[in-house]
């Protein structure tokens, strides 16, 4: 398993799409606060501090996570079916379950790296321009740590779903297209169906799709923590098991 994770990390390091995504997101994350900075300067409005910027725009990071997972799933995993590399991997004398878990682990690491670009780069830039300011009373370094951990955990959950799609679809274009549509539509779909069906409403309430919005909440009640932690862990577990089941019996062309 160690070698499998090592080789996936080696491939991630050499993956051009991964670096393109990282660089593009870094550029956008640098440009986005600058627009506000110059706008506020010309209109005389007070500038955002690093803390304010993070609290105001953290929810937008969900789109980056979804986009990042969809694109990376297509180019990092599904692309291996097109190049034929998956044949070499599958015939290398390792069980399909291990191969899948190694891929999922490194894919989640890559997606997590992408998911942290916007909050870190933007907040650092705004802090350099206008100072960090103060987080609201009662939150502090622990809030930042919590945001970091939950962002990584939720990204891993999205990555697990993305990896499942790659095992089913095996084609980069289909994987990217389907994942993007799925991640963008699932919220509206579950909310819409949930308004008519109580069960779906509850399912949506405790799904990662809804709970992603709570990552940046300042105060989380102790009663909310189990759902906030169990939902992504359960999503990872269920998606990984389904992914392994699909991949284990898949004929690789």
């Amino acid at each position: 398993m160690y070698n499998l994770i090592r080789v996936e990390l080696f491939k991630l390091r050499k993956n051009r799409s991964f670096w393109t995504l990282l660089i593009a997101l870094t550029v956008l994350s640098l440009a986005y606060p600058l627009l506000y900075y110059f706008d506020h300067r010309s209109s005389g409005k007070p500038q955002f501090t690093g803390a304010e910027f993070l609290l105001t725009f953290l929810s937008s990071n969900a789109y980056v996570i979804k986009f990042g997972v969809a694109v990376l799933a297509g180019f990092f995993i599904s692309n291996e079916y097109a190049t034929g590399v998956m044949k070499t991997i599958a015939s290398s004398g390792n069980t399909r379950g291990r191969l899948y878990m190694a891929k999922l682990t490194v894919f989640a690491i890559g997606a997590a790296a992408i998911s942290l670009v916007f909050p870190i780069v933007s907040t650092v830039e705004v802090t350099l321009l206008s100072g960090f300011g103060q987080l609201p009373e009662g939150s502090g370094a622990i809030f930042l740590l919590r945001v970091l951990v939950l962002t990584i955990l939720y990204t891993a959950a999205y990555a697990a779903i993305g990896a499942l799609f790659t095992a089913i679809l095996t084609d980069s274009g289909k994987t990217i297209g389907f994942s993007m549509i799925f991640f963008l539509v699932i919220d509206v779909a579950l909310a819409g169906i949930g308004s008519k069906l109580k069960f779906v409403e509850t399912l949506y309430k405790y799904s990662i799709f809804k709970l992603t919005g709570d990552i940046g909440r300042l105060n989380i009640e102790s009663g909310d923590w189990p759902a906030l932690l169990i939902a992504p862990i359960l999503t990872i577990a269920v998606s990984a098991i389904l992914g392994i089941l699909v991949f284990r019996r898949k004929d690789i062309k």
Partner: protein
Amino acid sequence: MQEYVLKTNNLSKKFKGHQALDKVNLSIRKGAIYGFIGQNGAGKSTLIRLVTGLAFPTEGSLELFGASGEQALIQARKRMGSIIESPALFPHMTAHENLEANRILRGIPGKDCVPRMLKQVGLEGTGNKKAKNFSLGMKQRLGLAIALLGDPEFIILDEPTNGLDPMGVIEMRELLKTLNRELGITIMISSHILSELHLMASHYGIIHRGKLLEQLTADELNERCQQYIYIQVNDPGKAAAVIQNEMGTADFEVMQDGAIKLYSQMEKPSHLSSALFSAGLEIEKFMPMGEDLESYFTKRIGGTPHV
């Protein structure tokens, strides 16, 4: 007792109602170069994919190095290398990086095997050139280097000479023969270039429409390839009469171009040539010939040659 690297027992594979493999019982002896022959869609790649674990049989089983069962086969596959259909490369990586990725994947200790393999296949000078910019021949050689990483005991090569220039084909053949002779690597090779296979294979398997028609050794093939005397004269009709009267045989055929193929009485070529000469015939060509693998294969599958 013969030691087998690969044995299949009634191996069958069905795709959406199409029987791609039908109860195939194939065996490859240790140390053999096994030429696997069949038309497009005959089932060659399907069988290779089952052996390498890319697909699963509908019925039957297979043994690799005597091991059978899912887990044992996975372990046994560590002892083999393969190129299936086309070389599987990371297009954005260099030759060195491609080998390094595969070295880590297979858990091969020591990095020295990477430059050694690159040298062995003649790709040591490719530097920072990405695999996507390689010619087809270079890709084939890199694919072979990947298959040979970790010193496998058995390699499966599906069309390894695709895209190689004539010199490349010769080099590949010599390399495979050397690997077989000096390192004792068993090789299963499928190729459309039957004349090329004929120059290196020690054993053959002929597959047609999912069924293994025949397995034979090179010696058996040579025995079965029909020998004849090829005769070209200025008057084929008269020559036919001479052969019948003087040699006492009707075991010959006159081809459309007037050439004659005599299948018997081959031990008396001088007697025949004298008879033809004495009959006043002008002999343009007179030589012993034999069927090659291609014509044997065509005859065996009973069809047109679309290997």
